[in-house]
């Protein structure tokens, strides 16, 4: 388990990490998500003991990373943004060096090394000099180094950067495989990446905590419950009449289709799904579909990490000249403000 409490890293007047707190439970695949420069790498560097925090503490398996660095670091395998490779060594030499550096028992070393080599598919490269490897292979050697000795916690900083799509899939599979027995923390600014493997996501912006939850809950929390998409059989006039008769509807947009159906976007002040159902049933207009507008993780991410929230709302209002849209944007903004606290 990793506990990060009130972490601050200050460079002069600039806060790279600003009072960040979170907990990673055992067995989770924990994703750091944030735009470039959000403080992901700095946070990871502090967690692994490479940098010291200005304030706050990191506790790895009960060991404070500053007070008991050796105990804490034994539990961690770390792949930094740029794999820490010595170009003048062969892959096998390098892994042997790392095994000794990590103080693996002598008799287990060779066994462990061959295990990580097969996990990262480096079998054909063991006797090649690292400087002659391609970027993808270098990344894999870095990954092999991080998982060598199978520490409890594996921290990967942008592990799939520079890999081709096939290798990306392989790395994801590897991460899933590792997560059976390890806690894996990875960072990325690419959403699909995090979405594909992580079961917990921490979103940070400007070093500040924004949100931390499962991907599904994040999507749900950010969904606009009071915006519904309807599909109704009928004409626009009929639908409009029914909608206007309902209390609580603030606005709507209607589109007629050739097959005799109308799709409508309805914005309301409260949850009006039941009232809608009965109103359409009374008017004998078949309601084919009611769907709350779900925010995709992409939208959640963009919304939460939007630098200038107010200008973002203004932009949204511009695109859809609809008072309700502005309102929902404002609500979302409020929500994200809440999650700061």
């Amino acid at each position, binding site marked *: 388990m990793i506990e990060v409490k009130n972490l601050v890293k200050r*460079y002069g007047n600039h806060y790279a990490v600003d009072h960040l707190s979170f907990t990673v439970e055992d067995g989770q695949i924990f994703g750091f998500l944030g735009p470039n420069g959000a403080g992901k790498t700095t946070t990871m*560097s502090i967690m*692994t*003991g*490479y*940098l*010291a925090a*200005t304030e706050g503490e990191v506790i790895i398996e009960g060991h404070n990373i500053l007070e008991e*660095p*050796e105990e804490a*670091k*034994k539990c*961690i395998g*770390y792949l*930094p943004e*740029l794999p*820490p*490779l*010595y*170009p*003048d*060594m062969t892959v096998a*030499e390098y892994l042997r*060096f*790392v095994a*000794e*550096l*990590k*103080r693996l028992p002598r008799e287990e070393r060779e066994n462990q090394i061959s295990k990580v080599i097969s996990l990262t598919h480096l079998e054909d490269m063991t006797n090649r000099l690292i400087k002659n490897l391609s970027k993808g292979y270098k990344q894999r050697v870095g990954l092999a*180094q991080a998982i060598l000795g199978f520490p409890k916690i594996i921290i990967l900083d942008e592990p799939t950067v520079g890999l081709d799509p096939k290798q990306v899939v392989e790395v994801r599979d590897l991460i899933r495989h590792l997560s059976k027995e390890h806690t894996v923390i990875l960072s990325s600014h690419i959403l699909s990446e995090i979405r594909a493997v992580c079961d917990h996501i921490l979103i940070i912006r400007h070093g500040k905590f924004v949100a931390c939850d499962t991907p599904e809950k994040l999507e749900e929390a950010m969904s606009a419950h009071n915006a519904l998409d309807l599909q109704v059989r009928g004409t626009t006039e009929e639908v409009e009449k029914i909608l206007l008769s309902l209390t609580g509807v603030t606005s709507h947009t209607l589109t007629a289709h050739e097959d005799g159906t109308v799709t409508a976007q309805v914005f309301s002040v409260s949850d009006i799904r039941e009232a809608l159902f009965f109103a359409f049933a009374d008017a004998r207009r078949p309601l084919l579909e009611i769907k709350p507008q779900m925010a995709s993780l992409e939208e959640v991410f963009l919304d939460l990490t939007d630098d200038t929230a107010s200008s973002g709302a203004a932009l949204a209002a511009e695109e859809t000249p609809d008072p309700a849209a502005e309102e929902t944007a404002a609500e979302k903004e409020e929500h994200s403000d809440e999650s700061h606290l």
Partner: protein
Amino acid sequence: MKAIYKREVQSFFNSMMGWVFIAALTVFIGIYFMAYNLLGGVPYFSTALANVLFIFMVLVPILTMRTMAEERHSKTDQLLLTSPATVTGVILGMYLALLTVFAVPMLLSCLCPLIIKLNGTAFLLADYASIFAFFLLGAVEIAIGLLISALTESQIIAAVGTFFILLMLYLWDGLVGYLPATAVGSLVGLFVLLIIICLLLNALSNNWTISLYTLLIGAAALIGFYIRNNALYKGLMAKVLGKFSPLAAFKSFANDHVFDISGALLYVSLIALLIFLTVQVLQKRRWN
């Protein structure tokens, strides 16, 4: 520490660096050995060593510039500093690897007194003591190189910085002679020294109150002694700095054939201090 030591030694001998250093030092010692002992007929090998000292200024920066600067440049320091090894262990591993490379030409030069012996009278004890002092002096200079290398990310700056400092040390005795010998001059000089020490203390501890107190107490002591007996201050600055002359100890080994224990202790404590400072530089970087 052992893993880092092994890797560093291997890397020196896999690249040209280690071989070039060993070859150059051996060749230069060999040239002076030939000129002074074999052709000049001087029975002391230490005379040749005393004259070859300047070569450290060129070779030590080449040997040490790569160490920490390169680790930092290629980000491999992240691997070392996030591993269970301690920072002291990392630095000691590197330093011992440097000493190992340096020990190879020193072991080769151990043959020279024996060659002299084959051809006539040799002073083996004096010569081997000088080789020992030569090794210690080299070790001090390598520790300086390691410290400078830890301060920067650029190998070039590390090399030039080390060269500059070694040059100052080489010229130390001459430069000390130019210091003002008057009492006031010494007072001012000691003040400057005190301020430098306090600045260093401040940079290391990040605690300006402690540095300020040290400065105030030091200044009070300096002025107090000055008022009581200012004759004491005449030439004091030169005398104090002269005591720290890094070459003096070696010269008493090589020229006066004395086993200078205090000189040897000065070297060992300088090495310890420099290693400590290197560790502090690395520790401090994590906090900035």
